[in-house]
């Protein structure tokens, strides 16, 4: 693969990655959100594979395949199980209306662009230049987790944050070492599992998993 095509493919994967994050803010239906997250997982894996090919690193390729399996197969499957358990939570409930959130997403991307300058300045390669995309997805994830009411939206926000961080790791450094990535992935999968179980506990204790109801504890 020529260098130009590979860097162009990388750019397309990054664009798709960002687009899915915006899509998550846009759509209300939880099933659509899970689909978008799956696509984002695929885009992330694509970024990892392209970078592994560029660096000609077998370790990076292994990580890429593992990350792809986790983010595009395992986690969406777990989320679908949560979704099936809680049929009443079909639509998310935004605190901030969708139009405003989308404009906020654009603003957050601007912020990400300025925040990522040290990372870009360190190694001005094509992939490092794309790191603001990862940071933008992180910020969008935070925004989502902060402004959505349903428990499952918060899980999705958390996953966006995590995908964004993984993207930054790949783009800025070509991926963290295998052992660390392994630990991170296992931790993430377990965290989603924990949240999945907690969601069903929340459901039995509070009824519909509307986080507005969480008012037992305060000062």
């Amino acid at each position, binding site marked *: 693969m020529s260098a130009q095509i590979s860097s162009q493919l990388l750019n397309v994967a990054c664009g798709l990655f960002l687009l899915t994050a915006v899509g998550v803010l846009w759509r209300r239906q939880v099933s659509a959100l899970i689909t978008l997250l799956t696509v984002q997982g695929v885009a992330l894996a694509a970024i990892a594979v392209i970078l592994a090919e560029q660096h000609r690193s077998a370790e990076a390729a292994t990580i890429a395949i593992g990350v792809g399996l986790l983010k595009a197969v395992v986690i969406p499957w777990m989320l679908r199980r949560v979704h099936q358990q809680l049929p009443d939570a079909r639509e998310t409930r935004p605190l901030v209306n969708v139009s405003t959130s989308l404009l906020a997403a654009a603003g957050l991307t601007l912020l990400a662009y300025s925040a990522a300058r040290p990372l870009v300045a360190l190694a001005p390669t094509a992939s490092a230049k794309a790191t603001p995309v990862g940071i933008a997805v992180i910020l969008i994830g935070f925004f989502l987790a902060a402004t959505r009411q349903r428990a499952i939206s918060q899980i999705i926000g958390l996953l966006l944050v995590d995908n964004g961080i993984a993207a930054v790791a790949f783009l800025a450094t070509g991926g963290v070492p295998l052992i*660390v990535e392994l*630990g991170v992935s296992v931790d993430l999968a377990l965290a989603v599992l924990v949240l999945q179980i907690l969601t069903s506990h929340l459901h039995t204790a509070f009824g519909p998993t509307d986080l507005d109801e969480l008012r037992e504890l305060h000062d």
Partner: protein
Amino acid sequence: MTTTTFALYAPAAAPFFAALLALVLPWRPAAWAGMLAALSILASGVVLAVWVSADGALSAGPLRADALTVWMLLVIGAVAAIAAAATISYLRHETTTATRRATRRYLVLAQLFVACMSLAVLANNLGLLWVAVEATTIVTAFLVGHKRDRPSIEAAWKYVVLCSVGIAIAFLGTVCVYAASVAAGGHGITALDWTHLTATASSLNPDLIRLAAGLILLGFGTKAGLAPMHSWLPDAHSQAPAPVSALMSGVLLSVAMYAILRYRTITDTAIGPGYTRTLLLIAGLASLAVAAVLLIAQRDYKRLLAYSSIEHMGLVALGVAIGTKLAIAAALLHILGHGLAKAAAFAGAGQILRLTGSSHIDAIRGLTARAPALAGTYGIGVIALLGLPPFSLFASELGLARAGVTAGYGWAIAAAFTLILLAFIAIARHTTAMILGAPVPNPSPQSMTPDRVTTVMPLILALAVTAAIGITLGPLHHVLDAATAIAGGR
């Protein structure tokens, strides 16, 4: 396997095996296995302390121990032992045939929790440190939600979401450090080794390290309960079973603080101490302010202890911010003293909760009349936490004040101690109301439980140790000195 390797792996492996045992054994031997695991952490800590004072540092595979690690291991071991003792008395009253599965889950997760914390302080690789700290969030989620009622599930949810977000930020910081290290010539897994990073710190890109330092402070600061990222802490600490609260408050917060200390040695060389100092000063004073304000009107004694943890973590952050030799030593000593005293206080609070069935301060009056031994122990625990002599928190707070004034941060110390005075008054007033005063006319039926001295013996022992450390450090003196030097105290 050499003895060095054995001593390095034992602190993480012992609780791990105890967790495996808890899967198969009945609860009583399993709980005792937990106690054994805690004691073996303590023993490894002592053995490593001797070796480290001779050799400087030991390493085996991904694990490494220096004086700072040893200090933290001693804290973990001591607090885990108190928590294990509290677990035995907690489970004696909680376990029925119906809750056997829940009990098993509790024992397994509590041991894994201790194992993760030991791993975190032993990891030489900062990536591994992150993985271990994140793992503590996962294993404690169900411990916080152990009771399965509405408040505890709510607390568990908030805890997992907030801490996962916080720790994700810390991972972003780790990635930035890794990027800087790779750019400076680091390679593969060694690029994230603390030893490698401290050796090459001066060649790391300063802009990137500044970004990383901010993210790391925000991330691990969330886990350490520093304001303004503290909001999960009172909920989780008040809802978790008392032994778990003891572990979380006594060591988990300190382990997060330890991570900040490790990173600070790198950032100090790369960008100078000014940036992290400012951030830590702000976070420390904010934590003190939040704790003092919310302590005044507090109505729940477990939340009272939780806010006191925020206050103490604020003090430790202040010590780390000032960063002189005396200040770091005081902060490390404060970590130990706070761990012991807070664990004892939480364990006592758990027994009060069982005795009275209520966690409201108003519902508990005249505890001395009903359970003199428990009331006395709890009272002494709170006195230790208030920083009165002879307990070691008095010594560390005094050291901190002196260090701050000498280093030219008199204003920060003045503000901090004004806030501490407020917290002091609030805690003292609430606790006096609980312990002294006329008893409530209609005690709840649970008060039939006899008030036995044996259940408070471990707590009395812990408080005695805190007092002893306050008077003289003895052999610990060398460890504390060496740990201070490693943590960058100048």
